[in-house]
């Protein structure tokens, strides 16, 4: 193997690292994953759950493309919920609570059983660079591992500091040391490295909680597993979560102790997530509220540890002791682990390409929290894309990039590298301008071709997805083409639904578009769908919301013409007349791949887009005329 120990080396075995190593290994490349703590592969540092709005969408996307997260979440699910199930089709999202130890064990098992993958315990201290190309890593014991491509997924660990009140402890998360070396080396190389912070709440002892003062919340009975490859019945028993809340007393204690919070005393410089604010943040920002709700979530089936959702804090332990006990049910609570905040280095994501390779160092990929995101799903999505692209690089295949109109993953990566981020980036449905087209129910249709192109899924799995797609389109055609006539029999059936009578013949699709009619009613008109929601639900949605979906597709087509105009990477923006200095500077930094992307850079005006277009055309004709 001409001096290389591996084709691909992945640094870090968090949610990004797992997908990043499985993808190349499953494509047959010799892959290694190096991580500091083998017992914590795929460890859930914060909340014990996977999915949610937009995040659940990404889990399904990863699944269809051939990633592992969906299967793992299904296999370890102890509470299943489909959020917004009563709302419109594009904003329904799956969220499961997982047994976090089983989740970790599941992932560890997957990695161990991957023939082309080696798991190496160790801390990466340095990258081996040859000019501006990465050729491997150096571990803390000085040993070197050479590879054709390296993916860094070190999460919250680089130069990380944990804050417990004003006390600071180096560490990437509780129980793990921070890692030092890589980010410093990249900074020396000229990368812009910034700081972010995030926090986590306390973990409580189940037996010390007075559950009678809380309200039980159960999951759904109807289950749509993340993965189309998972069994339709969840393997683990399902449990409840419990609702409690903060009180005026809680708020008073927190307010009185704000000066002991590292955020408010100015010790933390990193910017925290606005949408996962700590309880201190919430109380300051929403001073008029005297209560916030919280869920008490069991971290697994065989553990006493309870996660206190929504109450992340970096106040000192003594203050946590005080304020937690002011919440109903927690009067005598025993705290297993205190909440804390972690502050860490991240690499400004405008320095990488869509394929997640860095711009300045070839063969070096970055994925996960290191790129400024927050959340397991965001991390896994990037890990997968980096893994595929590292493999493609080694195999000499073209880069793999998803469009914004194709997948939330496409939106995630395009946002990061086009706009950058100054706070932990979390996915939301409103970040997707083509939201109505990016639904959970049509994930297979959206990504099947790409999935086949990548080739990670087995033939059996591909056939299974083909079968699903065929069954759906058959049902769709059937409903659209079956006509009903206003005869006695029909009128009788309509009255039974009940819905208004017909005056002329209509298709069953027309009938289904009536608000009061659903797909089950069509059975009496001879439509068969074997009661499988995986098949009939997407069809029902496609028909019921056809008008809106069509309108969304028109907007996509509209946007497409700009997405299809590719910009050469060596474009000299300073040569283009009509661009302001600020615009040139921004365009040079982002180096957009399409005119559409250029348009999304804030501060680049429509007239600049014009100018670029004209310039390109003139350059082309100059070349054709043989001037260049």
């Amino acid at each position, binding site marked *: 193997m001409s001096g290389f120990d591996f084709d691909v080396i992945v640094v870090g075995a968090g949610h990004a690292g797992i997908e990043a190593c499985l993808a190349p290994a499953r494509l047959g490349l010799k892959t290694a994953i190096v991580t500091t703590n083998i017992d914590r592969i795929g460890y859930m540092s914060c909340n014990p759950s996977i999915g949610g709005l937009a995040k659940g969408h990404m889990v399904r996307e990863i699944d269809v493309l051939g990633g592992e997260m969906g299967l793992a979440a299904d296999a370890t699910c102890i509470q299943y919920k489909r959020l917004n199930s009563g709302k419109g089709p594009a904003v329904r999202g799956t969220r499961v609570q997982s047994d976090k130890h089983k989740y970790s064990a599941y992932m560890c098992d997957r990695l161990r059983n991957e023939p082309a993958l080696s798991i190496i315990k160790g801390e990466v201290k340095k990258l081996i660079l040859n000019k501006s190309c990465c050729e491997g890593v150096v571990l803390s014991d000085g040993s070197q591992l050479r590879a054709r491509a390296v993916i860094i997924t070190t999460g919250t660990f680089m130069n990380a500091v944990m804050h417990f009140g004003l006390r600071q402890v180096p560490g990437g998360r509780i129980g793990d040391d921070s890692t030092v070396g890589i980010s410093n080396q990249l900074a020396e190389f000229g990368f812009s490295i910034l700081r972010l912070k995030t926090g986590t709440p306390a973990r409580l002892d189940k037996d010390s909680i007075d559950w009678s003062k809380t309200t039980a919340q159960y999951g759904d009975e109807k289950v749509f597993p993340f993965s189309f490859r998972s069994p339709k019945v969840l393997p683990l028993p399902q449990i409840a979560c419990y609702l409690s809340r903060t009180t005026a007393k809680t708020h008073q204690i927190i307010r009185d102790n704000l000066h002991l919070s590292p955020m408010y005393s100015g010790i933390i410089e990193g910017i925290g997530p606005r949408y996962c604010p700590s309880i201190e943040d919430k109380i300051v920002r929403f001073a008029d509220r005297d209560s916030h709700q919280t869920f008490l979530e069991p971290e697994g089936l065989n553990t006493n540890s309870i996660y206190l959702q929504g109450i992340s804090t970096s106040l000192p332990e003594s203050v946590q002791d005080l304020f937690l006990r002011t919440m109903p049910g927690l009067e005598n609570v025993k705290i297993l682990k205190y909440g804390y905040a972690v502050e860490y280095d991240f690499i400004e994501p405008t320095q990488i390409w869509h394929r997640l390779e860095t711009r300045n160092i070839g063969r070096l990929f970055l994925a996960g929290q290191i790129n400024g995101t927050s959340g397991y799903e965001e991390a896994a999505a990037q890990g997968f894309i980096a893994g595929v692209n590292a493999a493609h690089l080694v195999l000499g295949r073209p880069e793999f990039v998803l469009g914004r109109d194709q997948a939330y993953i496409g939106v995630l990566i395009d946002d990061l590298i086009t706009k950058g981020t100054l706070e932990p980036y979390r996915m939301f449905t409103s970040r997707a301008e083509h939201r109505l087209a990016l639904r959970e129910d049509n994930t297979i249709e959206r990504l099947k071709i790409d999935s086949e192109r990548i080739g990670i899924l087995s033939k059996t799995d591909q056939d299974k997805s083909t079968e699903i797609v065929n069954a759906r389109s058959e049902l769709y055609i059937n409903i659209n083409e079956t006509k009903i006539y206003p005869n006695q029999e029909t009128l009788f059936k309509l009255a039974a639904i009940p819905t208004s009578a017909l005056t002329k013949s209509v298709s069953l699709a027309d009938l289904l578009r*009536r608000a009061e009619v659903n797909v089950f009613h069509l059975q009496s008109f001879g439509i068969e769908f074997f009661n499988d929601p995986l098949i009939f639900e997407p069809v029902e949605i496609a028909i019921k919301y056809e008008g809106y979906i069509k309108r969304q597709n028109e907007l996509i087509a*509209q946007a497409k013409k700009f997405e299809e105009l590719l910009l050469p990477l060596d474009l000299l923006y300073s040569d283009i007349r009509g661009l302001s200095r600020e615009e040139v500077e921004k365009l040079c930094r982002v180096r957009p791949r399409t005119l559409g992307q250029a348009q999304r850079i804030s501060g680049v005006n429509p*007239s600049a887009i014009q100018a670029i277009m004209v310039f390109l055309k003139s350059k082309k004709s100059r070349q054709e005329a043989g001037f260049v």
Partner: protein
Amino acid sequence: MGYGGAQEQDKHKVKGFKDNETICAVSTPPGFGGIAVIRISGPQSFEISRKIVHFLPEEPETHKIYFGTLNSFIEKTAIDEVLVSTFHQGKSYSGEETVEISCHGSPAITQWILQELVSAGARIADRGEFSYRAFINGKIDLVQAEGVLELVESQSKRAIQQGLRQLKGGLSLKLKNIQSDLLYVLANIEAAIDFSTEDIEVLNKETLFARTKRAEETLGILLSTYEHGRLLIEGLQVVLFGAPNVGKSSLFNLLLEEARSIVTEIPGTTRDVVESILLLDGVRVAFFDTAGIRESGDSVEKIGVQKSRESQSKADVIFFLFDGSRLFSSADVEILRGLDLKKVLILGNKIDLFLESEDQRRNKLKAVLKKSDLFLNQNELDLFVQKKVLFISTKENKSREIVLNSLREHLTNNQLEDEAVISQARHFENLSRAADFIKQGNEAISHGADAEFVALDFKAALICIQETLGERFDDQIMDFVFKQFCIGK
């Protein structure tokens, strides 16, 4: 739940986004020039142009120039004498079927023609859209490309200046208010979607409705000012009205500085409506001389009187003349009664005949008017007599300036009154689209449609508003969400 049938959804189709539309714009610099060129490009260029270019043959040749009179499609009158060049698809600047109309270079005329083309089915081009199409169709070569770039640059600068002028007087302020209402509503909708599981307080339907309704209303009012804004650009209609022999035709001739209308000392001289146009500080003012109003047995004169009455109803301003050397008669009062007083300016003519101070004249007039029941109260009457009455003599040249000044005042006054005025076809078009989307969104809310669909409508509306303001969309909604809401993990 609110999804009726396919028909109901079809009206949600996106308007104006299609790229195969036919576009039009003035291609020469704005302002007064010898001539101006209006370019029409797109698959229906010939078909649309033919509605006003009646002399365009069935199948025009490419690179051919035709000469003739342009006719209004809306008002059935002649607009201008023009040269029309035609280009076949693939052979024009933009690469599309193209028509170029060379007309006289006054903004009044070019705006009028654009208005006609839009009514006939074209759309006002976006900035640089011709070049864009030329680029897409591979029609721009090196030399042209560089020329165009310069044009784009200078155009955008000019457009900014123009935009600034356009947006003064409160239009942009009003649009910003609408924008912030929409942002607020969208932020609430988006938060309701994305944070549905968190304990955030999302506003109820009624509160949101109050905002969207307000946006819809403000936009409605703005759109209704378009008529007036257009008037500023397209011109003012001024009708000379009054009893026979008071000097209407004399004033008409004085204002236009030519003997267009016949003047005699015989009452009932003018029988038909006579029109002539004057450019007043760049605004096109059309004056109409009419037959004096009286009961007449003469059937020709009767028709003339009838026409006078009709023409005043379309007027923006009515000059009501009376013989100022005499008292305001009861006949005058009766004629005045039939008019919209808001439009009326009373001109007491022939003051050279009778030497009296202006105050005396005014007081006499006031006394007569007071006896009529035309005014609700003393206050209104005082104001009217003070502001809306002038004394002139068509024998004196300085009266021309007095009258024209009163018109100038009218133009600027009205502008101040309606501080926000839409005057550009492009703004009108964009904002009409915004209004449609808001209306659809409001309907969707009241049908109980799902939030993501409602959001689609309001987002589309917001984009239209921001296009008009020249602002970009960016992440404004997200920022707004974070400022407003308490979002847990």
